Structures are given as structure tokens and as C-alpha cells.
């Protein structure tokens, strides 16, 4: 038996997770997302990461980016390494991919700001 705080929404439900090696039961969650989160935490924990990539534009030296979907928690720093290799030389828009299929995880790194488009 283990206590787990759900990080899916601001409710932050305190859940109790029972895992007997075969099945997992969750209590304390207000919605089904809590159960999904607890299940993922027990099997393959995933997280979203947000960061910035360097640009060649002096008015916006960095552009905010995030992963398009959650990535395995143990790959966070590997993905950060890839993000930190990027230098953008062309203006891109919010939602455009900066890296497609990063480290073959099936997830893109996408821009989350229009600053390069707005200012160009």
C-alpha cells in the first residue's frame, strides 16, 4: 500500500494505491484520470517537460518549447540534451515542431510561443 498525490489537475487528490504484483487498486481519486495516473506511476511513469531552445534572433534569444505528449520519466534528461542542441535560425509558429520524433520516443518537441512570427 502506497500513498500517491495525483499531479494531473490542481485538485491534487491524495490516493492510496494497492499493488499485489498482479492487479492495482486505487482509492481516493475524484476522477478516472487519477486511476490512470496511479496505474502509470506503478508501471511506466511519464511526465511532460517544458524548456526553451536557443534561437539566432536577438529579440528572442530563446523560444519556449514542450513535448507534444508525455515521455517516460527516466528519459527526461536525455530529451533535455536533445532540446539543448537546437539553435533555431528560421522563425516558427506556436505548435510547429522543433524536433520530430525525439529519440524515437514517438513524441515531438513543439514551440509554445508565437514570438518569432509576431516580431518578424
Amino acid at each position, binding site marked *: 500500500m502506497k500513498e500517491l498525490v495525483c499531479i494531473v489537475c490542481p485538485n491534487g487528490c491524495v490516493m492510496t494505491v494497492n499493488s499485489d504484483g498482479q492487479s492495482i487498486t486505487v482509492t481516493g481519486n475524484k476522477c478516472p484520470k487519477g486511476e490512470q495516473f496511479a496505474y502509470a506511476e506503478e508501471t511506466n511513469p511519464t511526465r511532460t517537460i517544458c524548456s*526553451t531552445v536557443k534561437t539566432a534572433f536577438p529579440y528572442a*534569444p*530563446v523560444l*519556449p518549447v514542450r513535448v507534444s505528449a508525455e515521455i517516460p520519466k527516466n528519459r527526461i534528461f536525455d530529451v533535455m540534451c536533445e532540446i539543448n542542441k537546437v539553435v533555431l535560425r528560421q522563425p516558427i509558429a506556436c505548435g510547429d515542431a522543433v524536433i520530430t520524433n525525439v529519440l524515437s520516443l514517438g513524441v515531438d518537441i513543439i514551440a509554445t510561443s508565437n514570438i518569432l512570427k509576431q516580431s518578424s
Partner: protein
Amino acid sequence: MTNTDVIVIGGGPAGLAAAIAAKKAGAEVLLIEREARLGGILKQCIHDGFGLVRFGEKLSGPEYAERFIQKFDEANIEALTLTFVTKIEKTPEGIRLTAVNRNGVVQLLSKALVLATGCRERTAKQIFIHGTRPSGIFTAGTAQHFINLLGQMPTKKCVILGSGDIGLIMARRITLEGGKVVGVYEAKSTPSGLTRNIYQCLYDYDIPLYLSKTVTRVFGDDRLAAVEVCSVDENMRPIEETFEIVECDSLILSVGLIPENELAENLGVELDPRTKGPVCDEHLMTSVDGVFSCGNALHVNDLVDYVSESGECAGKAAANFLRRERTEIELIIGKNVQYLIPQRLDLNAEDLKTVLYFRSREVLQKNSLILTVDGCDVYRKWFSVLRPPEMERVEFDFGPLGLTPQSQVYFRIEEVERT
């Protein structure tokens, strides 16, 4: 002189929502922003989790702002950017503003005004830390500005004082960028930030959280070299035998936010000592007729979704503002309520459907918010847990209560059986 119906000061989430709502309600609107770009602090809040309540999606700050900027542009609302308001006066013709920008000094006149000026971080000067004056001591928001907008790492090894949300978010951000966060120190016995942030920002990255511990002294000549930390007793007094030296190049402060109301105060707007924002009625009109407040200028929010909601309320009301008498009664708060917004109710308003925002004074399990009018219970809402860092919102229609100027309207939080 520019003459308009509604002027909104501040182009962050509250101001954008207010301007869009005012325009939608038929008003001619002008928004004034001191920075070059709209979006306010969201521009540097690149982490996700914004908009869950409103859009059902986990957006980053810039993405959340983008959605409102798009609507703002579509509504064809005029914005004066790189413009700073220096003076506001009440005149018989309306509210007169003096602002400066690249064209020099400009005079503006409007029928109603929405103050969406946000909040400011408490700085090192406002908490009592002894020692030298080295560089390397800054607020979490400043660290966020350096890393997320300028792309500069301001620290290799830091101590974070205070467990506010921005501090927790920056602990994770600094770690992701290769910096070392020695620990987050919180003088209180409970964290100030949201529980989920304690988990996803600290515990996920093995960053220790020290409760009932604070920083008492800083050391260093040019650059910070170390800080002195110690445990505090329940009266927040340092405990002698617990002093410890922690080496670090930076001390990052996340020790609270204060609503920015300098312009409001100059106008004579009455402030609530509990929220440090204006005292407002159910339409978020301040004590000065025609002047409205919203977002973090009204009270410090933990979720942007409610910042936008209060902006919409203030913007719509500002557009519909007509000079008339107000008959106001106080919403009195009692046991366990840290604050309640609105603080007053204008009984002359057509509609008394009200969105109430409140926080409890301490962590409370299985409690109810109870409303009594002249000693009779009229409303109860049960909460499995109330935490001061997590604002609660309830909707209530005061209309059917038939309130009079003599009514005693009283809110309290009490442990009662769930009904």
C-alpha cells in the same frame, strides 16, 4: 485627448480577458501595457498546467496567453504597448489618465477603468536576512526571466527560500538546465505552493523540502558564497543550536506575492488588508465608482483560469457601468476564513448572482463553508479538505434572500457533519 468607454491597465491574462469582455459587451476599449508584448507574466511561465479548468487542456503559459491574444486581435481592440501610466484622476467628465510612451506624454479619458496591474514579488529587502550585500540574491520571477526569456543560467548551485509555486517551478527548471538546487527552505510548517507542485517539481527530481527552516544570514563579497540556515520554532523564532552553513552561489526567493495597487491607492481606492487588493463589490467595482479590479491585482490567485474569470467579470461590468447610487452591505467573514472576495454586496445591482473566491486560514479536513443571514443558516458547502494555498470558488445567488441594508451576512468555515 483620446476619449473611450473603458480603459484597461495591464495586458496580462486579467487585462486581456477584461478587454475582450468589455468589447463584447459593446464598449469602446483601450488597453495599456508597459511592456512591448501582451501576455504579462505568462510569457515567462513556460511550464504547463495552465487552462485545465477553462480549456480542459494542459497548456504552457505562453500558449494560454496566445489564445487570449488571438481573441483580442480578432475583436480589434486597440492596445498601447510600451506605455506606462503615471497618473489617474477622477474628473467630472470621467477618469483621466496620464501616460508616457515613445510619443511623449499622452492624456486619456474614459468612463470606466479596469485595473489589471497584477502582483509583485516580495524581495530580499522585505524579509529580514542579515549579512553582506553580494550579488546572487534574487526572486524566483527574476530567475525565471533570466532562464526562460533571456536564455541565461543565473546559478550553478542555489538555495531556494520559500515554497511558493514559482519557487517550486524554478527548482525543477534549474535542475532540468543542469543547475543544482541544494534545497527548498520554508519557515512555515506547511508548504505555500500547490501539493502537486511539491510532487512534480521537487520529489520527482529528489530536491529536498525543509519545513520550519529558514535562511537567516548570507555570506560573500562580490558573489554569494554561502547562506546560514536554521530551524524555527512555532513562533518563527530561530532555534540557536540548529544553525548550519550551506554553500551556494545563489539564493532564490519565493516568499510571497503582493497585489500591485499603487495607482489604485493614489486614486483613493480602499484596500483590504487581508488580500492587499481593493475592496470590491460583486461586479468587482472598487470603492471608487467606475474603477474595477481583477486578476492578481485583486488578490493573488493560484490558477490563471480564475484570473481570466475575474477579468471577464470586471470587463463586462466596466462596459455596463452607469453612474448610480450603490447600497452596499459588508460580507462579514468569521472563523477560519482568511479572506473572501467580494468583500461587499451592492444591493442595487439587478443581478446578485455572485462568484465568491475564498481561502481558509489553515489546513482543514472535512469542513463546511456556512453562510448565515441575521443568524440563520442559508447555505452550506462541504469540503473534504481546505488548504490555504488552494483558493476555492463557489457561486451563490444572493437575490432570493431579500437582503436589506440592515442584513448581517456572515461567512464562516466550521467542522460540521456532511449533509
